[in-house]
């Protein structure tokens, strides 16, 4: 089975909220010193699912990422985990683009790879929390898509069975290949790369494609613009809720949470 996995490199999601900084002028994240970006968590689950399918059925796993030079590290990690090949789409015109452009570019890259039976993506990226690009890819490629998926069963040359998570439960769907699945973390635990894999990844040559290589029409503007990025100023220390009685404090707490749109 020839599988393509899309991965995105994102800022480390474990950065505690109190240490999270953004540059409002450039609308970018300033990670704390020494904190490197990582492969998006859900994408790691997608990669693991791909590797398991390949180990079971044979075939090839290719990883694709769109991003600046640093995205190379995510691709290397994927190779270390066992991916057979990787492609890096790296073009200033595309790297900071919006989701619609990203979806177009990744779809073009996957098309350029040739025959593919299955595309696996993480259900969403932990920076934008969007969950839309993979569905855009599917639409551009004309692939049936199911997302989010917690299990892949009964794979064959023509179909797979995917368990799609719905409100309180799941659906079992038989999907005709080629198809795209958005993978959720319930599916598996991503493997830790063996040392030989890490060494192989270090030596790997990863081709870089630009917008020209993908034959994308230049100058097509994105449809979604980021207008503002900011961090809500928060008190460094805890707000202790005072009230006449503990019960009142409890009720007040509920109101505070509702005010913050958390409940």
């Amino acid at each position, binding site marked *: 089975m020839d599988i393509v996995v899309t991965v995105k490199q994102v800022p480390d999601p474990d950065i505690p909220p109190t*240490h999270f900084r953004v540059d409002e002028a450039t609308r970018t994240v300033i990670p704390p010193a020494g*904190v490197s970006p990582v492969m998006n968590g859900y994408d790691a689950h997608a990669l693991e699912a791909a590797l398991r399918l390949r180990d079971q059925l044979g075939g090839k796993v290719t990883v694709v990422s769109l991003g600046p030079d640093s995205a190379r590290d995510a691709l290397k990690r994927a190779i270390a985990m066992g991916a057979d090949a990787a492609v890096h789409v790296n073009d200033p015109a595309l790297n900071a683009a919006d989701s619609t452009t990203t979806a177009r570019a990744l779809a073009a890259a996957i098309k350029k790879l040739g025959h593919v039976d299955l595309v696996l993506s993480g259900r969403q990226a932990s920076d934008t929390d969007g969950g839309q690009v993979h569905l855009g890819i599917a639409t551009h490629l004309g692939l049936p898509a199911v997302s989010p998926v917690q299990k892949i069963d009964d794979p064959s040359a023509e179909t797979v069975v995917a368990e799609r998570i719905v409100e309180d439960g799941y659906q079992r769907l038989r999907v005709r290949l080629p198809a795209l699945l958005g993978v959720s973390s319930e599916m598996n635990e991503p493997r*830790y790369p063996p040392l*030989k894999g890490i060494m192989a990844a270090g030596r790997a040559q990863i081709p870089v494609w630009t917008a020209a290589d993908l034959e994308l029409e230049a100058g097509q503007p994105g449809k979604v613009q980021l207008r503002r990025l900011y961090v809500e100023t928060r008190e460094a220390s805890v707000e202790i809720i005072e009230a006449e009685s503990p019960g009142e404090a409890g009720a007040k707490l509920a109101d505070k949470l509702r005010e913050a749109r958390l409940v």
Partner: protein
Amino acid sequence: MPTRPIGWNVSEVAFGVMYVLVAVQALLLAYGGTRRYVMWRRGRPLSGPLDRVGERARHALAVTFLHRRLLRPGYLYSGLMHLFIFWGFVVLFIGTLIVLLEADIVRPYFGLSFYQGTFYVVYKLVINLFGLLFLVGLLMAVYRRYGQQLPRFRRSLSDDAIVLGLLLFLGLTGFLLQALRLAATHDSAAPIHWVSYPVALALGGVDPAVLTGAHAVTWWSHMLANTALLVYIPVSKLAHIFTGPANVFLRATDPKAALNTIANIEEQEHFGVAKLEDFSWKQLVNFDACMRCGRCLDFCPTFNTGKPLKPRQLIVEIGAYMNRQAGLLAGPAGPRIDEAGVRGSELTAADEPSLVQVPVIANLIGDVVSEDELWDCTTCRACMEQCPVQIEHVPLIVEMRRNLVLEQSKFPQELVTLFNNLERNANPYSFPASTRAEWAAAAGVQELAQVADPSSLEVIYWVGCMSSFDARGQRVATALAKIFAAAEVRFAILGREEGCSGDPARRAGNEYLFQLLAQANIERLNHYSSEKRIVASCPHCFNTLKNEYPQLGGNYEVIHHSQFIQELISSGRLKVAPGVLEGNGFAYHDPCYLGRYNEVYDAPRDVMQSVAGGFAEMPRCRDRGFCCGAGGARAFMEEKRGTRISHNRLNEAIDTRADGVAVACPFCVTMFEDGVRALNVEERFAVKDIAEIVAAALGSES
């Protein structure tokens, strides 16, 4: 002229048979030994020729003849027991050689004789003494194994009984032979054969013909028993006679506290041990040296809390497997090998041993040794400390862990979190590295990078991850900072330039990650100066920096904070009022990586004496200290099987009736703090690091 007729009542034919049998035994022994040697050599070759041969030989001789490793604190009875058996046998053997010398060499070829007169008298007095000691030792052993009901002798094998039985038989028949001859020949020198003499007197009235007949029978049975013994040696626990000293000779001479490194790790194709041949040939000798005494189990935290890992069983199983692979008999009465998998249950006496073919394709990890056993180990080294033949259980286990981690990527899920955190944040938690020195700002402690004149500093304080990030650990760091201030010790911390020492990664088998972490630290430390003394408040950091960083080019003078505090007190730099024991005081717990690993037992005790006026000593203390359960990266894994190691130790501390437990390691603090909560004694049983105790004794506000 006192002497005895050598070979009285023994025909030429009998002697002829005896010599033939001796020759056959010697050949068999040589053959068995050679096959065994060949089997060991299937292991990996060493990286260089064997080093320090002279020192090794001296050490092996001392261990063997002076019984240094048997006569340890707490083992007086069994130490003496074995001493008697050993020296009894050795002297009896030498005695036999002396007779052989007289009868087969000196007399026929030189026409001389020394086996008479004074020589003979002394000879007989001594040999009777040692023969008696031999028997006493054996009887002590019988009682030890079958009477004392020790946990490690719960399951004995036929092999154990056969060995004891044979030796006893030999000893007794030896004296009987002597007694029968004395009685039958009315030897005038009888009294010098003082052990047999009373028996000879008792037999005085018996018909000499009967005595002679009995003597012949006894002679043949003694000779046959001797043959049986020598033939039995290579296929029984008695092989340790040769393999034990061999193993002691071959043991690692590097600091005992260090695990070996993997050089050029990036170019290796294969990591750790997945099959027998991956062990070095020295390591393979380990498995043959074990004679199942079980001392490794006495203070083992996993054995004593009902977990799968039992060090003796691990060694014995691999040993039996190794012997099968080599086509050698593991011994008809030895450990049984299952048909289904090589791993059997614990050695059970109930199962009659049989020679069963082990499937040759059995995997070392999985079939012979389970992964659970490998991950259970806390690397406390209680097993290695007690092993009389210096088997190296911990490095063997870590080698197998290395294969699981670096090659198979197969290990407990919790370690994925640990490795990822170490990789990303240089600490085992998920806190960003940039927050490492936040505790210091509050305590007025400077980072080295901020110090204008680093040469003015006396020491670098290596804080460690637990004291940097954990609120409980930070209290210890703050206490130590207070102590430094009171003693006017100028110091700084690496702060944000400090990363995890790498200890948990290395113990868990992730040697690659360890090297990454270590190299980063070494680079920073060398940048500042490798001459400063480093004080570490965590024994794991202390051990790694001191004993293992040299492997990667980091050579530093590192001391533990208990040693430094002791220095400060004894030099008068730290003024503490002589401690008065308040209430019932503290029980002192020896951290494994400080005590057994680095033999620092006294410094913390001196400190406790100075500031607290004393402390309670637990029964399992010093080299027999019982682990808290956190070592070997176990602090980062779930403890799912058996009972809790930390509770076992904590109950021992509580039983001393002290008001709390004093420790010198942040891992121990964490395990015990969790423990007192789980046991619901947090109100009445305190857990304190000695730095906190000392800081409190300084009297200023906390």
